[in-house]
């Protein structure tokens, strides 16, 4: 279809050269400022790999051990840098292996461009060798996708892909390129995309919405903020902090909002959601104004919608109009990029503080501390708890590390107990809950922020979903720190079985290999700890290492994560045991 030409506005121009489609792909990546991509080769993408060989001094390609690893690495890179992550794969199985990571990026709004090879145009639809309809398969899990069948389409579509991936509410874009389009030559000419006719990246900020929101905020007696990843994606940490400090409002975070506000900020009152803190969950149903900022009222956050914050006026700061009133009906929706809306509302907000109301959060925290946190951090039993490990990492890192967590109990514990001083430090699979995320994501995070310490916290189950990425670590020498919290169970599922399925532990017990030997097999320094007295030294040794390092901590087999809102229950029914 030729309409692409008419629908994209153009700006900067470079000079024309006659090159192959494959070379054009590389040049487009360079034009977009990409210097690192993750991928796995195969027949249908070989022309591009051939060009990568030529351009290796400008564009580093990291060979992951599985295409899923490539997507998660690209996500990890994107999450800590705020830039677009890039993953590349061949057609058929290579392309389908990307799907989990793409779906993960879609639901967590991670900017990513995936490039897949495809059979030649004349073979499309013929069930040719390694042909799959990746456009059809990835359609529901991409922000946008497109199949390129002519070399000359490459610059325009690539420019559009990057623009769509990173603008507005970010997300993954997949570009499928037929083999003939990679071979064919054409006059290359690159223009960055700055707008697309049918796509409005960021809604216009409405003055009346700002005024209406300010009125609710200024008149509230017990206001509460719940912030999400929108603050981080919008690079609005400073605006956010200025806003809450002036308004004096207690602020709680979703797991993807974590690290946007330093842990020890006096207005930080903890995490909401299924395994969030007692106070912010309980008080959601007592506040008189709930101000949601860059979060989307996920069901893991709200629990039963019929009993969620019914007493409160709801103000929603949101970039994606489709999220407004989707789950929770708002009184005022402030559409727009939070960097802009928060800055614009600031002068309309009265300087305020709510000491009595803050005191209620503190009282709840004391209850939670006595019933849960004390036992997690200072256990009396012999077995190590997951929380103690996080505490040691906090001490060794002084809150400066990037923590990448996988999915399960260890993830909830990591998010609950990890301490952060700076934004973009918490990388986890929130919306999709993808086991196997952390190891490859940690590779991407460390490559994106080489000067920062990156520690992956992984369960024994999740680790084995992408354990082959140890090979990527060995080959690239990327110095990530890997901590496997081994409870010999698919712990989170076991917890549900214990609480809701009469302790029938169906297929959740894991007979595990010797993880230390495996790490050593990949030439990585490795240690196993199972005694409390050795934990601190082991963690310190790991943190001191200049190289990649593997630490297995044998933790209590049947510990549970509390507090907990049973799925579908009200946030008021949060359980402490």
């Amino acid at each position, binding site marked *: *279809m030729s*309409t*692409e030409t*008419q*629908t994209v*506005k153009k700006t900067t121009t470079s000079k024309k050269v006659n090159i192959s489609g494959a070379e054009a792909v590389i040049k487009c990546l360079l034009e977009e400022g990409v210097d690192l991509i993750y991928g796995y080769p195969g027949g249908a993408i070989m022309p591009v790999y051939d060009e990568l060989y030529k351009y290796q001094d400008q564009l580093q390609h990291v060979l992951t051990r599985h295409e899923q690893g490539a997507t998660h690495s690209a996500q990890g890179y994107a999450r800590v840098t705020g830039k677009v992550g890039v993953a590349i794969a061949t057609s058929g199985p290579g392309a389908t292996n990307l799907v989990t990571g793409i779906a993960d990026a879609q639901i967590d709004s991670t900017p990513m461009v995936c490039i897949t090879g495809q059979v030649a145009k004349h073979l499309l639809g013929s069930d040719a060798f390694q042909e799959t309809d990746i*456009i*059809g398969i990835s*359609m*529901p899990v991409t*922000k*946008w*996708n497109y*199949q390129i069948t002519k070399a000359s389409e490459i610059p325009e579509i690539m420019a559009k892909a990057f623009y*769509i991936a990173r603008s507005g509410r970010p997300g993954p874009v997949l570009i499928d390129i037929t083999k003939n389009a990679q071979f064919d030559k054409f006059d290359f000419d690159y223009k960055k995309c700055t*707008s*697309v*006719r*049918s*796509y409005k990246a960021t809604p216009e900020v409405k003055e009346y919405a700002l005024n209406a929101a300010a009125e609710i905020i200024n008149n509230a007696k017990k206001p509460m903020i719940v912030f999400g990843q929108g603050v981080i994606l919008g690079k609005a940490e400073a605006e956010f902090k200025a806003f809450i400090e002036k308004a004096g409002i207690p602020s709680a975070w979703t797991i993807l909002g974590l690290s946007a506000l330093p842990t020890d900020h006096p207005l930080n009152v903890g995490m909401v959601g299924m395994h969030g803190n007692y106070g912010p969950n309980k008080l959601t149903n007592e506040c008189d104004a709930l101000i949601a900022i860059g979060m989307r009222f996920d069901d893991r956050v709200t629990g039963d919608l019929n009993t969620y914050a019914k007493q409160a006026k709801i103000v929603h700061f949101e970039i*994606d*109009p*489709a*999220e*407004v*009133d*989707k789950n929770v009906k708002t009184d005022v929706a402030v559409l727009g990029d939070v960097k802009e809306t928060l800055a614009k509302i600031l002068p309309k907000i009265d300087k305020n503080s709510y000491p009595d109301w803050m005191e209620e959060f503190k009282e709840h925290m004391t209850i939670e501390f006595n019933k849960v946190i004390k036992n997690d951090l200072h256990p009396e039993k012999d077995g190590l708890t997951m929380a103690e490990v996080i505490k040691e990492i906090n001490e060794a890192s002084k809150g400066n590390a990037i923590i990448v967590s996988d999915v399960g109990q260890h993830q909830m514990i990591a998010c609950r107990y990890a301490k952060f001083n700076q934004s973009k430090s918490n990388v986890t699979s929130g919306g999709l809950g993808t086991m196997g995320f952390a190891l490859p994501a940690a590779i991407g995070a460390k490559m994106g922020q080489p000067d920062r310490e990156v520690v992956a916290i992984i369960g024994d189950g999740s680790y084995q979903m992408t354990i082959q990425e140890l090979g990527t670590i060995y080959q690239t020498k990327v110095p990530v720190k890997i901590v496997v919290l081994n409870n010999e169970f698919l712990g989170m599922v076991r917890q549900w079985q214990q609480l809701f399925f009469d302790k029938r532990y169906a297929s959740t017990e894991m007979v595990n290999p010797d993880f230390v030997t495996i790490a050593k097999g990949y030439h990585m320094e490795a240690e196993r700890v199972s005694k409390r007295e050795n934990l601190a030294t082991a963690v310190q040794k790991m943190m001191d290492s200049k190289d990649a390092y593997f630490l297995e901590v044998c933790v209590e087999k049947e510990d549970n994560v509390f507090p907990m809102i049973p799925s579908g229950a009200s946030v008021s029914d949060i359980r402490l045991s």
Partner: protein
Amino acid sequence: MEDIQKFTFSVYTENNIGILNRLSAIFLKRHINIESMTVSKSEIEDVHRFTFVVNITKSQADKLIGQLEKQIEVIKAYSHTEDEIIYQETALFKISSKHLYDEDIQSRLKFRRANIVAITPNYFVIEATGLKDEIDNMHDKLKPYGLLQFVRSGRIAISRSKMAISELLHEFN
């Protein structure tokens, strides 16, 4: 509980391959059955218009608009209740020629906006255009003659009030 009612969606899109899949997936994902669908060119060059008819609640309709407009290639989506639009459907009825001179069939054709659009020695074809009920009615009337074939189109609809789509596109260019 909110009432379920008939909504007609007018969705203006870029004329790109695959857009139908994206749009229908939005209904599929929410388990909403599409009663009828029509795609055509619109009044604007290179812009296509999809018309979907679905039975849903008002709040479902509002959410659908958000999800439809979220698609990159969707320029604008509108939802209308029945009284907000003027709409038509078309049906074709193929009937054996032996009934062509039946008195009663002739009289039945008269009271509806129906025309004979083809006649052959074996069969004749009646075309009828109207509201859904009118077509249903016509179908019931003609059924006794033994329909050799029956086909009906999706709905096409025009809004009573103005849709500011052209201005929107103008702004961009």
